[in-house]
């Protein structure tokens, strides 16, 4: 859910460019310039990965790239900090399970 009106911030999105990316095979709309995690959150997705040992659901924690709670597989690359990585048109984003495999 997005905030429409704010007493302090100007959240007018008329000038923003809409893009589309894929999450678990589903198309999701986002605004250019926002991060993957932000776009997923706006679409109501809070679980971003499963923890490496017990596979417990994990979502954001710090949202500024300090912790590793938002690691996801993006275009085949694991352990991408989705809270500081901008979403791009056509990106393929998947939930990460475990520690992430090395890509050739």
């Amino acid at each position, binding site marked *: 859910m997005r905030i429409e*009106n*704010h*007493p*302090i911030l100007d959240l007018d999105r008329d000038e923003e460019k809409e893009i589309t990316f894929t999450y678990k095979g589903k198309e999701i709309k986002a605004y250019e310039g926002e991060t993957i995690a932000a776009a997923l959150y706006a679409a109501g997705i809070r679980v971003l990965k499963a923890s490496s040992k017990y596979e417990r659901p994990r979502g954001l924690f710090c949202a500024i790239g300090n912790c590793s709670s938002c690691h996801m597989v993006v275009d085949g690359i694991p352990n991408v900090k989705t809270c500081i990585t901008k979403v791009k048109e056509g990106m393929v984003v998947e939930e990460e399970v475990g520690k992430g495999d090395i890509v050739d």
Partner: protein
Amino acid sequence: MLEKTGIPTSDDLKAIKPDKERLKKGPVALIECFRKIPCDPCFYSCPFDAIDEFKDINDIPNLDYETCTGCGNCIASCPGLAIFVVDYNKNTLSLPYEFLPVPEKGDLVWGLNRAGKKVKKAEVVRVKDPAKNDKTAVVTIKLPKEYLMEVRNIEVGELNG
């Protein structure tokens, strides 16, 4: 107690109350800033030099009620949104407001006390939201005298259906 609840006690409030004679003379500012913090913009905001210059930036602001004209310039300058203006002649209270929707003149709003409880319905008589206030609106509401020292916030919306 203030440190536990965030609500100033009657003892805290005694420190800021101008006397009855002063209140009769017209509008006056009340600075509800009770503990030392490093902050001084209110001093710079007063066009009448009614707030003493801070010897130490942590000092509690000291307002000279005789010099204060109740112009309300300080209201939106306070980062703690802790300054109010009461006018016992016109029975009005001016307060800072940073929520949406900003009410309009003539609107009926709830007056809330320092604990956020609805205590009295009030009519909005003035709204100042100039660019220099940078989105802190100053809303003036009309209230019976006995509520001027009690109401410190408003709830907008519900009463205008």
